[in-house]
């Protein structure tokens, strides 16, 4: 198998490498890729949308349909993780109950009629080995960093029209702050800030903001996602309406990405139980 794979890869790779001879030189301004469609974007993006960041314009206007499905892919991944892993079977079977050792977060299952083990018993000694002492360095650092990171992510979102940035990046940074909270404290703390239900609903709402903007354009009589028609609603001319709509759409993307990142982390880190975490 290994040899076969090697031969296959070498053969196909050789074929592709030989063929690379016919590709244009690196950075050639006259290559078809830089002369056919892209000059149109570069020349007209600002005029059409009054937004200097061409990547944002192409992302959220010219090819907004792609971007919407990109958000949908993220949403589908969130659903996939939830669907495959989440289990709530514990604690519902009756008869037994659970004792949670708060400092370590270890949960002990106590069978029907059973008693809690004694203070110095073997069970607790094995739990004590897992106990993590309060770690001031990590917790304090994260507590100081998280607000700044969150503000930064909002900046990345709001300034996406003028500088590198936009919905996906902002969403990832925002999601990272909540994951950071979960890592530095524990899953319970972050679940208290953002429950699973919130994450799920936010991710759906985020994608819905995007898709709904498109649907609104359709209902107002234009093509799907043609923001032009929103001009009277946004109290602006057509170009500015596009600019504003790009922001609206990016807000939706931010919400979706942030919520899905957090949701996937919740499910992956606790193997779907969402009682422990890292």
């Amino acid at each position, binding site marked *: 198998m290994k040899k076969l794979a090697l031969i296959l890869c070498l053969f*196909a790779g050789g074929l592709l490498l030989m063929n690379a001879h016919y590709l244009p*030189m*690196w*950075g050639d301004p006259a290559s078809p890729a830089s002369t056919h469609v892209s000059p149109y974007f*570069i*020349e007209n993006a*600002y005029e059409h949308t009054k937004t200097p960041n*061409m990547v944002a314009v192409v992302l959220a206007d010219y090819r907004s349909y792609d971007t919407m499905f990109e958000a949908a892919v993220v949403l589908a991944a969130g659903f996939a993780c939830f669907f495959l*892993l989440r289990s709530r079977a514990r604690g519902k079977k009756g008869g037994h109950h659970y004792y949670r050792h708060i400092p370590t977060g270890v949960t002990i299952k106590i069978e029907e009629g059973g008693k809690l083990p004694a203070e110095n018993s073997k069970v607790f000694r094995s739990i004590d080995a897992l106990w993590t002492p309060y770690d001031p360095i990590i917790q304090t650092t994260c507590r100081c960093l998280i607000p700044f990171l969150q503000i930064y992510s909002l900046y990345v979102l709001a300034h996406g029209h003028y500088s590198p940035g936009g919905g996906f990046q902002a969403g990832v940074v925002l999601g990272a702050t909540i994951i950071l909270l979960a890592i530095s404290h524990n899953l319970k703390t972050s679940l208290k800030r953002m429950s699973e239900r919130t994450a799920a609903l936010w991710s759906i709402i985020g994608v819905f903001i995007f898709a709904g903007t498109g649907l609104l354009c359709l209902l107002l009589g234009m093509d799907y996602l043609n923001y032009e028609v929103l001009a009277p609603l946004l109290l602006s001319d057509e170009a500015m309406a596009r600019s504003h709509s790009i922001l609206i759409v990016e807000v939706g993307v931010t919400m979706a990405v942030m919520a899905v990142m957090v949701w996937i982390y919740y499910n992956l880190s606790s193997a779907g139980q969402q009682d422990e975490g890292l």
Partner: protein
Amino acid sequence: MDAIPYFIGKYNYWGCIFLFFLGMYAMISKTNLIKKIIGLNIFQTSIILFFISASFKHDATLPILMEEHKGAIDPVMYLNPLPHVLMLTAIVVAVATLGVALTLALKVYRIYGTLEEDEINHAIQSH
């Protein structure tokens, strides 16, 4: 002899194709599932690099319009924005795939207690 400019002029393609098949080889030949998933990521990243390198133009800057150019815009001045957009999508798809792959690997691990493919196959056959 312009062999040297030729090789320098296309090194991006060589590199990406090398990474492409490196990732594919890892996916086919490794037996550990996590290593396969790492291979998958290398595989997808190589395509992202390939696309991005196609957007590059010599003497051009990043595709954010500068204040002084707002009147007449010369397309040669700016990089091609389209591959960046496409690859943003591809990156997101790669991340989503990675998430689902890890989820499935976690499920496999919970069922068989191992991530080695041959051990899993052995467990399936002996069952």
